């Protein structure tokens, strides 16, 4: 298959990833703008979480653009790393009144396994509600599918990865759009 044909086939997926990136970025910026008006730390933490989720989406989009396998693979792995960092920050915000430990995600996301991202998003989903809960569970399942693709190996790996990426991108973009619509301001 020619490179041009592959690129064209990837356009819908890229459009989804970019939409997710912009929507999460919009939420992060809205929270940051409110934080600047009334220096409440929770808003800054939430803004950082959404910013990390948006960068995760950006990495997913860029992993499609780059032809170099190493760069593309690194960006692909970074998607779950950054999502993991975002979820750790959310957990810290939710359960820890001492904000001293908020630096933890930035250290932990460097080691980045999909299974951790999956577990953390499930943990976030437990106390979430409505559509957010459902979408977080979908997102989490995509990380587990990535793990499964590695375990299974062989010819089924690309198919599982494709399904995982489809679930991940769709749930992430739905989560991003739902979140940005909630805080949308004309």
């Amino acid at each position, binding site marked *: 298959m020619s490179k041009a044909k592959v690129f064209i086939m990837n356009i819908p997926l890229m459009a989804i990833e970019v939409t997710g990136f912009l929507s999460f970025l919009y*939420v992060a910026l*809205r*929270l940051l703008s*409110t934080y600047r*008006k*009334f220096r*409440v*730390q*929770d*808003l800054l933490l*939430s803004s950082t979480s959404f910013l990390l989720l948006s960068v995760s989406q950006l990495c997913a989009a860029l992993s499609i653009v780059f032809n170099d396998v190493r760069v593309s693979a690194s960006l692909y792995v970074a998607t779950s790393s950054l999502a993991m960092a975002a979820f750790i920050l*959310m957990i810290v*915000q*939710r*359960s820890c*009144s001492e904000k001293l430990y908020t630096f933890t995600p930035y250290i932990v996301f460097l080691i980045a396994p999909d299974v951790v991202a999956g577990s953390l998003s499930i943990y*976030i989903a*437990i*106390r*979430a*509600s*409505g*559509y*957010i809960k459902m979408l977080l569970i979908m997102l989490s399942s995509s990380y587990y599918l990535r793990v499964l693709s590695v375990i299974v190996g062989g010819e089924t790996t690309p198919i599982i990865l494709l399904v995982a990426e489809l679930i991940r991108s769709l749930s992430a973009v739905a989560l991003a759009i739902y*979140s940005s619509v*909630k*805080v*949308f*301001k004309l």
Partner: protein
Amino acid sequence: MTRKRTKLQIIYDILRILMLGEINPTKLATLVNMPYDRLMNILKEMNEKGLVKIVSTGKTKTVGITHKGVELYEELKKIVELLNDYGLL
């Protein structure tokens, strides 16, 4: 275990009650369920940021919301709802 309210939730609760009209700080402290002294510190901070106005008439004090406060309330309403959906508050 019930989690301690965050400052964001406290500010939102104060603004939500003030949206109903001007109120005496003592009554406001009861409605937002917090000690009077702590409430006054937060109100002072909010007053400095132009979100509320504290009017003293003789011995009585009343607290009201400003236009800027109404704007922040509208913004916080959406944000608090979103953060609640994520279970972050």
